[in-house]
């Protein structure tokens, strides 16, 4: 069992949890993820490791389905049945020169470890974090502390640049040379934003988030097409060369269980109504 040390709501439907998991915390590197299973009837879901502090890891998630909704009902002191990790290959960190790390929405959660390791490796690090509106923007202070420069964008103009991260990226590329770009966010955002770096021929990484089961290369649920080849995001990734990724296939495969996810979520919502605030917890 893995104890939740701290549970905080960061924004509407966005939560930050610190979970005690020494074997994960002691080995985690930027770009890696963990898989958790809430209880004996639970599913295994992957979440990026967003920070490490001693024996605890931080995950930041948005409630989008049954498991994340249920996770959000847990509080400090509660326990999660299984946490496994760190999984996936770490980010390819080196001293490249100038690097840009972009996070969109809850994808911002993945950016601090990458930005920090790039900075420690001697890079000039530019951060771009974007959200739909100011109240959904997370980790601004943390990223400001790490990055040499930080740009903020909101879709509605309530903070920073009125527009998308891709707009800022385009402007930066017109003005100066970027040696590497990382983009983490929803698939459609990664697809659009990474398109911006194509004409400039800048090596661009995206962190893919397909459906996973075991996370150790055993099932192939997370297979993605990269450069015309089938890769398993869990062991060959999760980061890949953005310009080689078949994003349309990724988005298609993310929808495999849409109908089942709806059933599960509705059933959970019903349980919750019957059991009152705090939700129903399996033991």
């Amino acid at each position, binding site marked *: 069992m893995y104890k939740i040390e701290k549970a905080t709501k960061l924004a509407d439907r966005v939560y930050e949890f610190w979970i005690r998991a020494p074997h994960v915390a002691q080995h985690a590197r930027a770009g890696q993820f963990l898989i958790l299973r809430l209880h004996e009837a639970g599913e*295994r879901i992957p979440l990026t490791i967003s920070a490490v502090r001693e024996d605890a890891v931080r995950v930041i998630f948005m409630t989008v389905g049954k498991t994340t909704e249920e996770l959000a009902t847990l509080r400090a002191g509660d326990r999660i049945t299984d946490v496994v990790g760190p999984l996936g290959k770490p980010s390819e960190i080196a001293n490249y020169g100038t690097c840009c790390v972009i996070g969109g929405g809850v994808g911002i959660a993945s950016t601090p470890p990458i930005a920090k390791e790039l900075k420690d490796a001697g890079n000039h690090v530019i951060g771009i974090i974007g959200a739909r509106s100011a109240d959904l923007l997370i980790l601004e202070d943390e990223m400001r502390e790490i990055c040499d420069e930080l740009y903020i964008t909101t879709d509605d103009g309530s903070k920073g640049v009125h527009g998308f991260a891709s707009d800022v990226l385009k402007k930066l590329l017109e003005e100066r040379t970027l040696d590497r770009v990382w983009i983490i966010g929803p698939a459609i955002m990664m697809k659009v934003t990474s398109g911006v770096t194509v004409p400039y021929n800048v090596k661009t990484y995206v962190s893919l988030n397909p459906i996973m*089961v075991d996370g*150790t290369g*055993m099932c192939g649920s997370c297979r993605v097409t990269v450069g015309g080849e089938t890769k398993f995001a869990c062991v060959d990734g999760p980061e890949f060369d953005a310009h080689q990724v078949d994003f349309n296939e990724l988005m298609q495969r993310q929808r495999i269980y849409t109908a089942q996810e709806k059933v599960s979520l509705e059933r959970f919502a019903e349980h919750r109504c019957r059991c009152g605030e705090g939700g129903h917890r399996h033991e």
Partner: protein
Amino acid sequence: MSGLRSTGAGAARGVTAMSDRPADVRIRDFGEVDIGLSTDEAINEAARCLQCKRPLCVRGCPVGIDIPAFIREVAEGNFPAAARALKEQNMLPAICGRVCPQETQCEGVCILGNKETPIRIGALERFVADWERANGPDLPEVAKPTGRRVAVVGSGPAGLTAAAELARAGHAVTIFESLHEAGGVLTYGIPAFRLPKDVVKAEIDQVLALGARLKKNHVVGRSIGVDELLSYDAVFLATGAGLPAFMGIPGENLNGVYSANEFLTRVNLMHAEAFPEFDTPVLHAARVAVIGGGNVAMDAARVARRLGAKVFLIYRRGEEEMPARRAEVVHAKEEGIEFYTCANPVRILGDQHVTGIECVKMALCGIDASGRRSPKPIEGSEFTLDVDMVIQAIGTSPNPLLVSLIPGLERGRKGNVIVDENGRTSIPHVYAAGDIVTGAATVIEAMGSAKKAAAAINAMLKGE
């Protein structure tokens, strides 16, 4: 008595058991197909044993069980002694009694097979193990602690076998398992109707009762560094052949296309058949194509059938060439799986979701390196099956995740770990056995090689 010697078509050929539940009943649940022998049946069957002076059956057993000895005890109704005799050589008898291919091993060489039917050694092994589980297990003796530490990576058949042997020898054994349940393929791969999960759990618990520690959720190479792993006095690698192969045909990444590993893991490990009681979903299809002719293909087909589908099994060679156990082929057919033999898929059809599979008929000509007739496509023989799910069960290869991270570990062309006859790798205190060495093989072969490697580790640790 009569039940056993009766000449039910299946039993007479030694292919399927008299104790199988009827197909139309068993396809409605995931309960065990074969309900096993009653006490009387077991005693009567054991009484048929000739107690050969030079028993061939023992030589046919990869883990060397003293088969006549345990059968003698069964015949005398002395079940605790029978269990002790079994567990002297095999800590997983309830599992082996169910999934070993006895027909090509112990039973295949039983002298009685020449005239009548061989002794049902597997059924007897299972009977004894089940009797012991119901009546409280009796653990073998454990040697005094040696103070030597052994890391066992993987808790499948090979890992559990080595862990049991080494724990009995008094070593401090830690088993690392990446999943949230132990058992490897016994847990995620083989369906409950062939191998009930409480049976697996009970035998794993017995291994742990010998003193082996189990660390679940630990991916060695990730949660445990390679340096830390190599700091153990001995290391035993049993990470299996978990990497699923895909055919590489168009349409393979459409929604509704599974590897058998994924499909079976969702059901066996995650209980997706009970969705939404359990959170993991699996697609339910009306018509399913399963590709392959091995035991895994039969398992996938029969799980899909139990989820309510009409199932087609597509195999590129003939039925006689199928690597699956004959009993599983017969079981699958009894359950209404429709076979398309000498056929091979060329592409999977559909826009976002699978709508069909296009196959070509194959002609069998010549004998290939595997000793089987080699299949060649017949031009112009393409045909299409309308299906809304495709499951590929065309094999798995050694999982590279850990072994590729160990510097100096010699590996073969297919990623398999190279070992000597004692299971020793290119690194002196690192041993390996099971599918990571051989590629996908049977549970009992993995156990046999693990036993050998465990003996070598034990000798090394004792300084012999």
